[in-house]
């Protein structure tokens, strides 16, 4: 048994997300890598929430169509997931609410006996699951202890009761790899930003990046990180630019609707050359769409948002390590080149959990821009060879620092002169080229699978996880451009080679990556799209790929 999948489901408010995380931690302790998908509708109590935890000896970033264990806190959970059950699936359920064959635990009775509140039903079913999967009680105890803040003893008691009532079906083998931390994509982004030097984070809540705000707000309570939630997203980005003007490395986070409201500020950032990092979490659109479901349909919007032309960095990490790595680099690069950067992620990445291998040793330090020379002759927009002006921030002795969203001269004073305007356009263009040169030294394109395969998949963002796995099983190769702007055309071409088939896999309907590739002369021979808000399962993608002519 190299891998194992567990689904746990119930109503919103039942703590399904935390329960899933506990299960994932159980596997971590046994030396597995875990991945957890969390599926929930946009409501607070009721409805149906579920998580699928998949653990494997290999790095994993996708889930399968079938599960080995189904932990059902209510009947819905069984009824809605019959398709995920096969002959081998062990069902564990609350016998008071679910009619099923398998391990049926009278959870309310146990809770009553232990004087425990309903939300602890989770722990009970997890206990039963552990026993069924042959996971030792000491592992359960350790994980509960590490992860439960309130009512630990009671939780342990009800878990033990579940444990004791179940019987072993299988025994998940134990491996001696040290346990890895489990991070959500949001947390990985947050930590990456901190690693890159983040000093301030401003956001207005919006799924799927609200949890990044919550995470950093907690961090900010204890440390020197300024976190603020203002009146709306327009204020968010303008505040970020105000922070940036004083030299504070600042990021913001949002999703499509909020990003719309930031586009005017983004263009200002392009013009006044105050860097800002925007974490843009995609979800199913257009408009409010399905706020808690995933999509990859804002690629071109991210590439082109804001009036006028200005260089920008756009990165689309596909898992927690890439999220950490490129969040750190985005901040560093944005600051070095004084451009806006967008971290384009999606609900699957943001709210999924991943076993995390600390990538810090591999992250290059970007040499920061040397500061300008203070004094009365300082020019905030001095035209230089590479287009980047040595920055200074107020207060700087004897120095006036003028930033300006109008076309301006080197000092930052508004101009409408034709030659000066053209000069400044060229300055910004050169800055973009300098950024491109710096990126040429970085791993902007990831590859997986068979590099010399006839059949190659191109994908981006969180879909990389499932593509990697499917490619492995089909003998294909995968090319994942992580940097999307400036587009690493040469890198992609080099990695892609000249295969017979190029399949583009995307979670949208219009083929946005395919279009981007086409712009750069790379033609796809086939495509697989999904646009119902749910990520591909391994089997689904495999089948869909098989169906492409």
């Amino acid at each position, binding site marked *: 048994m190299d891998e194992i999948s567990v689904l746990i489901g119930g109503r919103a408010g039942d703590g399904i997300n935390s329960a899933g995380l506990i299960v994932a931690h159980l596997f*971590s302790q046994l030396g597995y890598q875990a991945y957890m998908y969390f599926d929930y509708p946009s409501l607070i109590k009721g409805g149906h929430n579920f998580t699928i935890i998949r653990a494997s000896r290999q790095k994993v970033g996708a889930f399968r169509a079938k599960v080995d264990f189904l932990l059902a806190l209510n009947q819905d959970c069984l009824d809605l997931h019959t398709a995920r059950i096969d002959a081998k699936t062990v069902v564990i359920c609350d016998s008071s609410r679910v009619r099923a064959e398998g391990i049926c635990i009278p959870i309310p009775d146990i809770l009553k006996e232990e004087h425990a509140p309903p939300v602890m039903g989770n722990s009970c079913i997890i206990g039963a699951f552990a026993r069924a999967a042959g996971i030792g009680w000491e592992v359960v105890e350790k994980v509960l202890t*590490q992860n439960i803040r309130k009512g630990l003893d009671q939780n342990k008691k009800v878990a033990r009761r579940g444990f004791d009532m179940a019987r072993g079906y299988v025994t998940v083998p134990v491996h001696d790899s040290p*346990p*890895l*931390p*489990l*991070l959500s994509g949001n*947390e990985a982004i947050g*930590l990456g930003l*901190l*690693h890159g*030097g983040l000093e301030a984070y*401003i956001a207005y809540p919006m799924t799927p990046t609200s949890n990044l705000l919550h995470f950093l707000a907690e*961090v900010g309570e*204890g*440390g*020197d990180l*300024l976190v*603020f939630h*203002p*009146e*709306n997203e*327009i*204020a968010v980005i*303008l*505040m*970020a*630019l*105000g*922070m940036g*003007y*004083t030299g*504070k490395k600042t990021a913001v986070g949002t999703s499509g609707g909020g990003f719309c409201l930031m586009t*005017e*500020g983004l263009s*200002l950032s392009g013009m*006044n050359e105050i860097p800002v990092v925007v974490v843009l979490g995609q979800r199913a659109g257009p408009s409010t769409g399905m706020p808690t479901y995933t999509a990859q349909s804002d690629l071109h919007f991210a590439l082109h948002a804001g009036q006028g032309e200005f260089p920008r960095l756009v990165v689309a990490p596909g898992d927690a390590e890439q999220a950490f790595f490129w969040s750190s680099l985005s901040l560093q690069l944005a600051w070095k080149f004084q451009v806006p950067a967008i971290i384009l992620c999606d609900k699957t990445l943001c709210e999924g959990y991943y076993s*995390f291998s*600390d990538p*810090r040793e591999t992250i290059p330090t970007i040499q920061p821009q040397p500061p300008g020379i203070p*004094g*009365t002759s*300082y020019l905030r927009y001095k035209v230089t060879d590479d287009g980047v002006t040595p920055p200074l921030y*107020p*207060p*700087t*002795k*004897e*120095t*006036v*620092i*003028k*930033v*300006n*969203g*109008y076309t*301006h001269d080197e000092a*930052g*004073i*508004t101009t409408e002169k034709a030659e000066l305007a053209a000069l400044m356009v060229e300055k910004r263009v050169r800055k973009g080229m300098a950024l491109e040169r710096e990126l040429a030294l970085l791993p902007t394109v990831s590859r997986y699978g068979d590099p010399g395969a006839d059949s190659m998949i191109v994908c981006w963002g969180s879909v990389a996880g499932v593509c990697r796995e499917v490619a492995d099983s089909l003998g294909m190769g995968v090319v994942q451009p992580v940097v999307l702007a400036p587009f690493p055309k040469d890198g992609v071409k080099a990695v892609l080679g000249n295969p017979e088939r190029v399949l583009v896999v995307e979670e949208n309907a219009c083929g946005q990556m395919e279009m981007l590739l086409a712009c750069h002369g790379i033609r796809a021979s086939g495509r697989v799209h999904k646009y119902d808000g749910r990520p591909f399962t391994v089997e689904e993608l495999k089948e869909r790929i098989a169906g492409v002519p």
Partner: protein
Amino acid sequence: MTDRGLITDAQNTWCPGCGNFVIQFALRDAIQSVIDSGIERERIVLVTGIGCHAKMADYLNVNSFYSIHGRTVPVATAIKMARPDLTVICCAGDGDAYAEGLDHLVFAAKRNSDITVIVHNNRVYGLTTGQYTPTSPLGFRGRSTPGGTREEPFNPLEIMLSSGATYVARGCTRRKKNLEKVIGEGIRHRGFAFIDVLQVCASYFNLSDVYDRHVYELGEGHREDNFSGAFEKAREWDYNSESPISIGIFYRTLRPTLEERMEKPPGQIMNRPALITKILESRT
């Protein structure tokens, strides 16, 4: 920072007779007196919106952030939050601060962010050639309302008082001396200072006569610390009908500023690598 003083050598393109000149000199003098009182010039930051008023960023030789239309206040709030040792002043327009970006103004007042907002209230969009603004009188015939507007103006002083502003004043470009005073006091005020400046627009809405006729200074009898009195005084003129128009400081009080409340207890700072490692451990 050339040593040419507080005025840059950028070419000034305001119309002859524009009230912005008066604001410029009043502000320059107010800044000069702030500098004279010991605050270094490099600690002063000017944030402007977009409109005629906003050209102030080009004309005053201090740090400046020439922002976008309607967005002085969030920029200024953030600058102050990031660097409480800076003195942050906004020059905003009435289209800018009362129409496009009104919400920010309300929130700055609510939060008592320690910035000063000077609204160049010419009661018209100057730079876009004469459309009505939220403070244009009912029936104003601007280029977007050739038959006259169909709505009464609002009273920005009332709104600011209701929003929690701790310094609410009005000036007029026909009264430079008073203007300099209310601006200077506003800058010195600890907390959110709001100054509505009735500014003459020579080209699209020249109310010189009206202001000359009606403007008077709040007298000794006016108690700045009395909210109800200030509110009532603010309602004396509704920005619509002809009636006496008082200028001066309507209201002034103290409450904790946003920046004071945001201040971190010392000793909290943790180095980043250690912080990241600690969090990773907690997630294992």
